[in-house]
């Protein structure tokens, strides 16, 4: 039973890192009252009375909550505690009885009263293997207060209280200041309650948490909004769905029903918000079945289904399952086309968390509203993907997890609710919706922007912003403050200095004025001279056309030469003017324009000495693999593609933090080795590089090393016979994927280091080792084959993984690699890709031609019938042959039971086959 529910985080994907956020009250003190959180509830009919809830907590003396690792009976719990406290002398303790209906069942905690010597006994308690933690008992007091808020002149009623004066709302983050000298402007209130929240104690309705109920109570009668749900379908007689307008099937299975449960689960979430539909009686739900019960889907199915969604003029489209394949141009183009046709697309970020760099397409596209998951405590859910939009990998699969799709589903419904409540529907478009969600999102404290995106959804504020929306452009993030930690991590982790690689921040421009737009003139950098703005050089590059609804603005920040030995903070802003053709403007003046400012604040330090500067070679690490690069750790067979790539801020984050804490400055080299001044750097770091080196690079590196540059190389495995074996057949593209290199490109590395008499081998080793009291695991890697005699080698004997062992490992992997030569099923046409043998429980989905919807549903069954007819005939045949020989060798006496074994044996022979159907 999952206790944790998922709330929403609106994520934004840009092409590169930046995901920005909006905070809630900020320095601009919007007129919007901030207590719109769980503490304040509106009375439904909006009378003059407001119900106020207050909470206060205090620690109960001598009482402690002992939490266990699992659920145990009362006796077991008591035994654990007494055994843990046995060693502590003369402790006066007792278990506080809890008489409630749950006390008959196992529990995972116990309340213990410890009268004396509490400190030491607490420590002993915590050492017990079954005890997770010990915390003081708290008492929560709630007080209810009815206040007559109507008397102070400001009426709390709907129209005046909720509809604020937002005319001055300039960007998603309002910028009314002209100077940034108010340093506090960069800091944000988090919107987190300082008092203890009851969310954990009283699980509430998702909709209620998101304050949707308040919105519904306001009684809007929006006209019909069309919502499309792309999932595994929905059964026809679902009780909660009276508004299902249409169900269409785009898969090769001839059913509209949900055989998997994913679609129905998602439907259940919608059902929890079905009241909303009551307010919009004309609303329509369109169910698109694009995933089979085996969760198989193809790009071509989506293309056709999306075309249909455009034709049907869908308003909000929910795609709760994201694929990783951003290189899938037809799909990416189609998503752009959808948003360009004013379809608001809500998509899940992905369930690959907590790793960095694991956002999934299409949620990483700038024009799509991406959703992650947080729990009631505002902690980002562990499964939620995070990190920069890397746009990395190339092998597609379906990421289906209930939790995230639920989050995305809820958001779709809320977006739908929002759209239906907005008075001027002309103004609702993918950009304005995203702007409203971003502008209203509450930031999560202590989390950087790559993890939280824009923060937590705040529905009421989004509603309120949308209803007073004026078409305009906005930036996301709306400011660049490289000193703000942890929100601006990794930028905030290292000050900039003269001579360092420029810091590039990618900002998304959202344009609510129209589907296309352009940047007028050029963005201008305006340094604040009193704030040392002239110490910074800022260059920008930007998308020539903002389409659909969005574009990028890449801000490259470097330090001017005159600040080479200066330390301090510099500020300024970049001014961008966006113009769009006026569409709904009767005056037909031609263009609408909107100007936004992007404040920039950086910390500058004097250039560090050469010995403290480390350069990370990113250029030879593939971030966007054009081919198949296997995992560094060969034992991770389930996900054979190394699609995350390597980056010092993602999977090598720990290394980065360690280096920083040791006082080193780490820069990233995104250009060939010939392009940096080696006299500025102490060390060049090459980790797992997959690319080859140009001869000029090799020559230059040799010269640099003669001039005192240090080089650190981390290699990885490279073995041609293993590489041949780890190829696999990709169902989606119907192609074989062959690795382009091993974990690292060892031959290229050997070319590079051969001049110093060094070489790596093609062996495969694994094992544990200890270095400076640090236990390490060597997952899969090579050994050192050659090293100069006067060099120092620190050696450790590891286990030889042995190619044969690994080969077996991969051969038995049912989802992957089959030997090309030993394919079981017949393959008649030469251009058809090889097929892998079917294993029980798997579908024969490889055979399905893309885009065929109704008709060919029994493909795999059809394919296997002759196969099994043939096998069955062979079985019958061999049975008779055996009978024949037996009958010949025996005297002619008939056994009466001869029919049963025949029947039984036939049955036994058929059973394993039937599994495949």
């Amino acid at each position, binding site marked *: 039973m999952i206790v944790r529910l998922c709330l929403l985080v609106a994520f934004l994907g840009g092409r590169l890192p930046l995901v920005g956020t909006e905070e809630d009250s900020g320095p601009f003190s919007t007129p919007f009252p901030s207590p719109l959180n769980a503490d304040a509830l509106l009375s439904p009919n909006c009378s003059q009375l407001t119900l106020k809830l207050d909470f206060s907590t205090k620690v109960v003396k001598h009482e402690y909550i002992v939490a266990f690792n699992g659920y145990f009976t009362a006796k077991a719990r008591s035994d654990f505690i007494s055994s843990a406290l046995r060693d502590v002398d003369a402790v006066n303790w007792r278990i506080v009885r809890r008489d409630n209906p749950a006390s008959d069942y196992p529990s995972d905690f116990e309340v213990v009263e410890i009268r004396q010597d509490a400190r030491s006994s607490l420590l002993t308690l915590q050492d017990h293997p079954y005890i997770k933690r010990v915390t003081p008992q708290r008492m929560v007091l709630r007080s209810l207060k009815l206040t007559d808020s109507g008397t102070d002149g400001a009426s709390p009623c709907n129209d005046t209280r909720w509809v604020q004066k937002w005319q001055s709302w300039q960007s998603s983050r309002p910028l009314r200041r002209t100077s940034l000298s108010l340093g506090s402007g960069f800091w944000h209130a988090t919107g987190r309650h300082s008092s203890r929240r009851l969310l954990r104690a009283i699980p509430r309705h998702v909709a209620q948490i998101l304050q949707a109920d308040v919105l519904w109570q306001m009684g809007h009668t929006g006209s019909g909004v069309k919502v499309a749900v792309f999932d595994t379908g929905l059964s026809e007689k679902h009780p909660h769905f009276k508004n299902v307008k249409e169900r269409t099937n785009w898969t090769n299975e001839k059913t509209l029903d949900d055989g998997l449960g994913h679609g129905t689960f998602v439907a259940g979430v919608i059902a929890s918000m079905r009241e909303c539909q009551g307010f919009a009686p004309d609303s329509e739900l369109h169910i698109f079945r694009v995933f089979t019960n085996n969760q198989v889907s193809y790009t*071509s199915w989506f293309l056709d289904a999306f*075309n249909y969604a455009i034709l049907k003029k869908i308003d909000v489209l929910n795609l709760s399952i994201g694929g990783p394949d951003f290189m899938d141009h037809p799909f990416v183009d189609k998503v752009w*086309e959808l948003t360009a046709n004013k379809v608001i697309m809500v998509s899940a970020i992905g369930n690959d968390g907590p790793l960095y760099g694991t956002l999934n397409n299409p949620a990483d596209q700038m024009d799509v509203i991406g959703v992650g998951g947080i729990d009631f405590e505002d902690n980002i859910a562990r499964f939620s993907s995070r990190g920069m939009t890397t746009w990395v990998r190339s092998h597609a699969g379906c990421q289906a997890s209930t939790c995230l799709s639920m989050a995305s589903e809820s958001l779709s419904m809320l977006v739908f609710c929002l759209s239906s409540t907005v008075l001027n529907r002309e103004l609702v478009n993918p950009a304005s919706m995203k702007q409203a969600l971003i502008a209203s999102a509450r930031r999560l404290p202590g989390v950087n922007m790559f993890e939280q995106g824009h923060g937590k959804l705040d529905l009421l504020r989004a509603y309120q912003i949308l209803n007073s929306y004026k078409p305009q452009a906005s930036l996301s993030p709306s400011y660049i403050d490289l000193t703000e930690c942890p929100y601006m991590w990794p930028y905030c982790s290292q000050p900039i200095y003269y001579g360092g690689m420029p810091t590039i921040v990618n900002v998304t421009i959202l344009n609510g004025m129209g589907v296309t737009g352009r940047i007028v003139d050029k963005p201008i950098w305006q340094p604040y001279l009193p704030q040392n703005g002239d110490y910074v050089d800022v260059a920008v590059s930007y998308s020539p056309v903002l389409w659909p609804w969005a574009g990028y603005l890449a801000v490259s920040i470097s330090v001017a030469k005159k600040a080479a030995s200066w330390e301090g903070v510099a500020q300024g802003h970049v001014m961008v003017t966006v113009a769009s*053709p006026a569409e709904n403007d009767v005056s037909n003046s031609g263009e609408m324009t909107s100007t936004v400012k992007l404040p920039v604040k950086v910390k500058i330090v004097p250039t560090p000495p050469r010995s403290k500067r480390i350069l990370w070679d990113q250029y030879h690490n593939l971030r966007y693999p054009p081919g198949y690069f296997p995992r560094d750790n060969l034992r991770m067979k389930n996900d054979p593609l190394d699609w995350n790539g390597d980056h010092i801020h993602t999977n090598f984050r720990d290394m980065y933090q360690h280096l920083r804490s040791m006082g080193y400055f780490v820069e990233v080299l995104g250009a060939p080795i010939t392009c940096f001044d080696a006299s500025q750097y102490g060390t060049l770091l090459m980790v797992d590089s997959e690319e080859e080196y140009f001869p000029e690079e090799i020559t230059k590196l040799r010269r640099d090393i003669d001039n005192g540059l240090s080089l650190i190389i981390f290699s990885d495995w490279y073995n041609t016979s293993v590489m041949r074996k780890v190829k696999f057949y990709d169902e989606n*593209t119907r192609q074989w994927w062959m690795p382009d290199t091993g974990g690292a490109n060892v031959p290229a590395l050997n070319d590079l280091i051969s001049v110093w008499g060094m070489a790596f081998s093609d062996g495969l080793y694994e094992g544990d080792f200890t270095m400076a009291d640090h236990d390490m695991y060597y997952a899969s890697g090579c050994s050192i084959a050659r090293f100069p005699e006067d060099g120092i080698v620190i050696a450790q004997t590891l286990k030889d993984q042995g190619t044969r062992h690994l080969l077996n490992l991969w051969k038995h992997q049912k989802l992957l690699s089959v030997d090309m030569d030993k394919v079981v099923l017949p393959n008649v*046409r030469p251009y058809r890709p090889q097929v892998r043998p079917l294993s029980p429980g798997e579908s024969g989905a490889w055979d399905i031609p893309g885009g065929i919807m109704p*008709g060919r549903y029994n493909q795999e069954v059809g394919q296997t019938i002759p196969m099994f*007819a043939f096998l069955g005939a062979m079985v019958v045949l061999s049975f008779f042959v055996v009978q024949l020989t037996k009958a010949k060798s025996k005297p002619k006496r008939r056994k009466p039971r001869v029919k049963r074994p025949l029947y039984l044996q036939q049955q036994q022979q058929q059973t394993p086959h039937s599994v495949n159907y």
Partner: protein
Amino acid sequence: MVFRRLLRKRWVLGVVFALSLIYFLSSTLKQEERTIRDRTLLEARDSDHHIQWKIKFILGNSSRQISQCRNSIQGKSLLTDELGYVCERKDLLVNGCCNVNAPSSSQHVCTSCLANGCCSIYEFCVSCCLQPDKQPLLERFLNRAAEGFQNLFNAVEDHFELCLAKCRTSSQSVQHENTYRNPQAKYCYGESPPELLPI
């Protein structure tokens, strides 16, 4: 009794074996063919599958006067209105029609379209498809199109919607699911899918 004795004959077993082998091979081959035929959806299929399309083609002079136009909303810089005029966004009138007097707008343009009916710019594809003489081609397509597209083309109501829907990239535009058959000319109003270019 007779059956059992019959089965002991070697030639009976041989016949059983041969028959099942033949059945196996023929089914496999047939399966292959069906798969291949399905992949090229738009090619002629069994004529018993007809889409019940209800599209009304407007005959005669298409430069009639209407007060309100639908247009292809999505374009980056170009738009096509329902009369077949292509114009730049700035030349779009408030009623959604192209300003016919603007220098950029022209009617029924087939710029960038190839002989097989595939164009590299969506707006030109729509405009070209709206030419009155394309009507027989579209009707032929509708009569022969695979049932796979029946969801889409059953919902289409007139010539303009048909052209909007037909010109979009679809399952016919891709090979290996993730690459266009022809990235240069992927918007097709014609019957055949884009020419298959090697990757």
